[in-house]
């Protein structure tokens, strides 16, 4: 395409040159003709007019008159001449006179008046002379004398005529010379012009020649290059004309197809290397392309197809066909690569990958199942141990129970880690961010680990810097897990000295970077081993403590989790001095978090009101343990063995809380919850706590969708149960859906009085309506900052009144407005109005209740 444009450009350029050259030659010929004509006429003039003897003829007139005069004088003096002789002289003189009156001599005198006045008397002489000479009879002396008189009279005239002739002739020849000089100059000019033109043409020709030569050389080079490229190509290159006839077949093509170049040239692609089953399609495709010019394979980039070797076997090829339009038709160039080997390798790789994936999946599956299977009995063990500790024990028994609990806890930790590993590897590790108080978290952690340190006579110090003494929103459980691991390791590998945990942080605009530095005074880790400790299954040394473990998974998992949280764990260590493991985690500050759902209320001491509880669990031991635990706390427990049983039991009486195992035969917990929520039975609104031996993430979403209020991983410990019950019992007696706002509102009404709060509420809802109306009327259409401002204002009021249902969406709206995103504004406002309506209804009720 490029070449053809370039070619046509060339063509017009060449035509232009040819026209110029032809025009130049035409001009040249014309000028040459002109010049030749000019020169020839000049030459003729030179050889004739300029060269005649008119001057001589004129001067002879004078001579002959002198002769006549002399003859006449002689005759008169001596009288010895014959008449004939005298008459001859007269005749000669007369003949000279005739010369003056005719031919070119007359031309010399032309229209000269002077000549005329000189010649006229001569003609009179001629008449007289003829009269005398032709008179019959011999010449008389008187006639002769008379004649001599006339001759002598005209002689001065004759003389003057001769002189005039000379001067006129000279003038004329001068004129001729001038004309000639002019013509010569003109001719010279033409000659110079011709030379210049010829020079120009020669330059042009030279340029064209050089260009042609250069182009020739370029073409030769590129054609050589092309030839060698085609010949040396690793891909088969086959060229065919529009009838599919093969016109080019390179060496690689010979190798690939098994055809020799000589035997395949002239045959068609269809008859040679296109598989039989594809020949029809190829034929139609070619025809279609030639007819419509719509390519499918041609010029369509790389495609994978099948081809046929001469031996008849079919093999996969990668094909790229391009077409070139020639004057005489279309040429197709096919670049063909034998990809059979690649395909085989690909298949091998795919098989290997599939195998590996299957194995891996099986491994993960096994680990997950094992973890689950181990957790279920652990649930029983730990539960029973917890229960055992609530009974009267001897100090020895208590110690045994303690050991058993600790061992079970380690076992639980191991199963959890195994699960984490599979989750990390399968990419299903999910973070569960929640609100938490950072100082509380680290303090409780240190409290738990402090006994371990004390056991090895190690000090465990905690330092929390001022700026991070606050609440954050992050996966606190994971932070706790990592810190437990780091501090646990520090205790494990330190023989004497102390362990320090220092918490510091930097507050970014939205997110804070919180750093936990765990420092020990242990043996330290050599630089070359520092990265190694983070690898799977690497344990550099076996600790001596009770916690000794050899799988080396702890740090590896910790780092992986930290990285998933967007942070990292780094190590700085010096052999003999100690090590510092630093965990850095980005955490959202709590005030940034729009809704605060998890209200951590402290436990145990809360009112021990007896509740009616339903425990749904298929595992007899676990059901028994959980039941015993709950009964031990003073509650009434009803047991169900599966979902179906649960529905049966729930049908007859209302429960305060239902503990629902997720995985159960006959009907699982999810299904049972869904049914409960859907039916309009006595337990449609009951607080349901899901329990699972799987990781907490696996079923969370499903459980929440089914309508579970909480979700807890087994084993559920006594401590956890206390806090759960306490939290739930605070909610269960409050009117439905108003648990959250009630607190703020109650406080407010206590502080300000019910009437005042009621008034504020009315004003708030009034403002809200105005706000909605403003948005609907499009007042903020082009003014997103104003919308953000208005949203912010209303949001603040909603928060003040504890209207969290409104506060959340309003905060969302404010954020969107600040970001300039006003999509679905109408529907969002509509949703807000819906919420406003219901909250407004609830508002008065709550206020009335709180007053009691």
């Amino acid at each position, binding site marked *: 395409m490029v070449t053809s444009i370039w070619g046509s450009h060339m063509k017009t350029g060449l035509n232009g040159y040819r026209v110029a050259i032809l025009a130049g030659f035409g001009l040249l010929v014309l000028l040459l003709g002109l010049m030749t004509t000019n020169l020839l006429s000049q030459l*003729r003039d030179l*050889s*004739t007019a300029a*060269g*005649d*003897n*008119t001057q*001589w*003829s004129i001067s*002879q007139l004078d*001579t*002959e008159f002198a*002769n006549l005069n002399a003859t006449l004088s002689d005759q008169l003096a001596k009288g010895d001449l014959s008449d*004939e002789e005298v008459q*001859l002289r007269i*005749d*000669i003189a*007369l*003949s000279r006179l*005739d*010369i003056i009156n*005719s*031919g*070119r*001599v*007359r031309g010399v005198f032309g229209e000269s008046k002077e000549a005329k006045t000189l010649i006229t008397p001569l003609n009179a002489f001629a008449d007289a002379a003829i009269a005398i000479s032709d008179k019959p009879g011999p010449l008389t002396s008187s006639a002769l004398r008379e004649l001599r008189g006339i001759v002598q009279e005209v002689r001065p005239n004759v003389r003057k005529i001769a002189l005039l002739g000379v001067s006129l002739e000279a003038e004329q020849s001068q004129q001729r010379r001038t004309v000639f000089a002019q013509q010569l100059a003109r001719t010279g000019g033409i000659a110079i012009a011709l030379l210049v033109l010829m020079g120009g043409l020669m330059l042009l020709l030279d340029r064209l020649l050089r260009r042609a030569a250069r182009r020739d050389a370029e073409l030769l080079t590129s054609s050589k290059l092309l030839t060698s490229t085609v010949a040396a190509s690793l891909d088969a290159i086959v060229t065919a004309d529009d009838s599919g006839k093969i016109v080019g077949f390179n060496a690689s093509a010979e190798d690939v197809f098994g055809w020799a170049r000589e035997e395949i040239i002239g045959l068609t692609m269809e008859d040679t290397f296109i598989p039989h089953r594809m020949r029809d399609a190829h034929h139609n495709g070619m025809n279609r392309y030639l007819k419509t010019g719509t390519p499918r394979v041609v010029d369509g980039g790389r495609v994978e197809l099948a081809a046929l070797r001469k031996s008849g076997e079919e093999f996969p090829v990668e094909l790229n066909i391009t077409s070139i339009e020639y004057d005489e038709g279309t040429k197709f160039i096919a670049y063909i690569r034998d990809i059979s080997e690649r395909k085989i390798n690909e298949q091998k790789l795919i098989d290997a990958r599939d195998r590996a994936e299957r194995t891996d999946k099986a491994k993960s599956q096994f680990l997950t199942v094992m973890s689950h299977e181990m957790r279920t009995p652990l649930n029983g063990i730990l539960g029973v141990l917890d229960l055992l500790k609530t009974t009267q024990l001897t100090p020895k028994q208590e110690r045994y129970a303690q050991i058993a609990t600790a061992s079970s806890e380690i076992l639980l930790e191991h199963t959890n880690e195994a699960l984490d590993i599979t989750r990390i590897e399968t990419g299903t590790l999910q973070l569960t961010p929640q609100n938490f108080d950072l100082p509380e978290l680290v303090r409780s952690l240190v409290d738990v680990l402090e006994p371990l340190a004390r056991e090895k006579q190690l000090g465990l110090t905690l330092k929390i810097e001022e700026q991070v003494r606050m609440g954050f929103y992050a996966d606190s459980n994971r932070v706790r897990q990592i810190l437990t691991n780091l501090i646990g390791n520090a205790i494990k590998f330190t023989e004497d000295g102390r362990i320090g945990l220092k918490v510091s942080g930097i507050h970014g605009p939205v997110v804070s970077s919180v750093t936990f530095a765990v420092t020990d005074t242990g043996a330290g880790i050599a630089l070359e081993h520092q990265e190694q400790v983070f690898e799977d299954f690497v344990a550099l040394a076996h600790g001596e403590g009770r916690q000794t473990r050899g799988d080396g998974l702890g740090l590896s998992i910790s780092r992986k989790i930290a990285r998933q949280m967007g942070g990292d764990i780094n190590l700085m260590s010096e052999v003999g001095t100690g090590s510092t493991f630093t965990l850095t985690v980005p955490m959202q500050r709590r005030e940034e978090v729009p809704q605060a759902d998890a209200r951590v209320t402290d436990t145990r001491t809360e009112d021990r009101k007896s509740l009616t509880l339903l425990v749904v669990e298929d595992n007899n031991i676990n059901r028994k343990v959980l039941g015993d635990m709950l009964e031990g706390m003073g509650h009434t427990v009803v047991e169900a063995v599966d979902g179906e049983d649960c529905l049966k039991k729930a049908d007859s009486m209302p429960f305060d809380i239902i503990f629902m195992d997720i995985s159960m035969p006959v009907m699982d917990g999810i299904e049972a919850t869904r049914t409960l929520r859907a039916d309009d039975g006595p337990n449609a609104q009951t607080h349901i706590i899901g329990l699972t031996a799987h990781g907490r993430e696996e079923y969370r979403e499903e459980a929440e969708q089914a309508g579970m209020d909480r979700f807890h991983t087994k084993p559920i410990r006594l401590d956890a149960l206390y806090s759960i019950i306490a939290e739930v019992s605070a909610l269960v007696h409050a009117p439905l859906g108003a648990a959250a706002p009630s607190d703020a509102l109650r406080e407010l009404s206590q502080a300000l009085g019910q009437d005042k709060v009621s008034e504020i509420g009315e004003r708030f809802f009034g403002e809200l309506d105005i706000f909605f109306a403003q948005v609907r009327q499009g007042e903020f259409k082009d003014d997103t900052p104003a919308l953000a401002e208005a949203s912010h204002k209303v949001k603040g009021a909603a928060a003040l009144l504890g209207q969290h249902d409104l506060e959340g969406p309003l905060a969302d709206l404010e954020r969107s407005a600040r970001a300039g995103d006003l999509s679905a504004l109408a529907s969002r406002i509509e949703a807000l109005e819906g919420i406003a309506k219901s909250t407004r209804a609830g508002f008065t009720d709550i206020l009335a209740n709180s007053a009691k």
Partner: protein
Amino acid sequence: MTKPHRSRILAAFLVLLSYSVTPATGQDMMGLLVTATSSETEPFELSLEALDALDQVEFTTTTIWTDGETRFSGVPLKALLAHLGTVGSIVEMVALNDYAVTMPIAELEDEAPIVATRMNGETMSVRDKGPYWVVFPYDNDPKYSTETNYSRSIWQLNRLKVMD
């Protein structure tokens, strides 16, 4: 310079021809006197009749001395000299007024110049450049329109001398 043997043969030849050539004892006004320095023979005087008896050449041309086209007829000089058998390399042409001009015989052509005996079919009087006029067919070829040929175009011719 001349070889006696060759001269004798020429003399004999001239005697044979003498019936048509009268020796120039007293030159007639219309006669053409031809002398050859190499031969010992008497000069010959050719009359108009003698000239008319030779092969005639006629052409029409303009001249620089006359107006319009003129028809000339007469005997080519080359043929005339050949007829007389004169030997020489140069011919001197002399007019009545003794104007003389020479011309190499080698330059004579078969039909130019001619010794014109008639102009427009009429014999020429002395007043009219007669009796004889050596003319070239000037219009036939530019080569005749040269100064040399104009000077050789002698009129009132009455003598020819063939010289070595």
